[in-house]
């Protein structure tokens, strides 16, 4: 059982984590954050293995991984 957190206000919406997640658990939010970006959002914790791929590719280091 694992999960991640995303700091939405610091996310710039590049979407690289969405591509990195082997389980497709990350989606881009429809909402804008204060900087005008659509931030990434963690959809469900059920299947997360804590592989950390999202953390590895995140250029803004706004993801934390819990395992």
């Amino acid at each position, binding site marked *: 059982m694992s999960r991640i957190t995303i700091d939405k206000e610091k996310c710039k919406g590049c979407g690289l984590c969405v591509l990195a997640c082997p389980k497709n658990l990350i989606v881009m939010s429809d909402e804008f954050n204060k900087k005008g970006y659509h931030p990434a959002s963690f959809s469900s914790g059920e299947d997360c293995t804590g592989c950390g791929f999202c953390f590895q590719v995140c250029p803004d280091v706004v993801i*934390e991984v819990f395992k």
Partner: protein
Amino acid sequence: MKKILFKTEALKDTVMSYCPGCGHGVIHRLVAETIDELGIREKTIGIAPVGCAVFAYDYWNFDVTEAAHGRPPAVATGIKRVLPDRVVFTYQGDGDLIAIGTAETIHAANRGENITVIFVNNCVYGMTGGQMAPTTLIGQKTTTTPFGRDEKIAGYPIRVCELLSSLGGVTYLERVAVTDAKNIIKAKRAIKKAFQVQLDKKGFSLVEVLSSCPTDWGLNPQEAIEYIEKNMIPYFPLGVVKDKS
């Protein structure tokens, strides 16, 4: 549940000014993690370049100085010769390292300065708005090669690791890419090794990191990663170019 991956001490909790999808942030993290894992945060002095990473001192939580455009290896030499027991590294872009700073790069390497160079190659001048870099690929359009880089006018993209490999003072050269999780983990390993070479007092080490610039390439972040894989890696092959450590 335990937090297993997070920002380590050497990276400040600041929003970096890079564009969405830019590779600099990942490379900053890899350097910071390396420094924390080696336990050298309090004896490290970093040198930021002129280029997109000019504000690196705002992001790293250890001593960092500015240097004039292209001069970081000379500044590093000055620091390291006076404080040989500190860890000194430069963080430079392609314009800084192998256009205006070519002389400083080659001579610091040739002297075998016991420093580490993190060389970010994204084939373009980012901060000034997307001009040709010394590593810009043939045919690549930039704001100063509007018809694509033509070797007859602008010469060929420089392979820095191969260029430096013949110099006697150079100990370790490796080229990596921050494209996907696997390559990023490899990049971290190379950066850590480069710092270890310095800690072992074995001479000049440089890691060339192929990185993306979605904004100046006119691509979205995903396309930019594909651009590295399809266009940069074939010209700048990954791997260890020299290791006499």
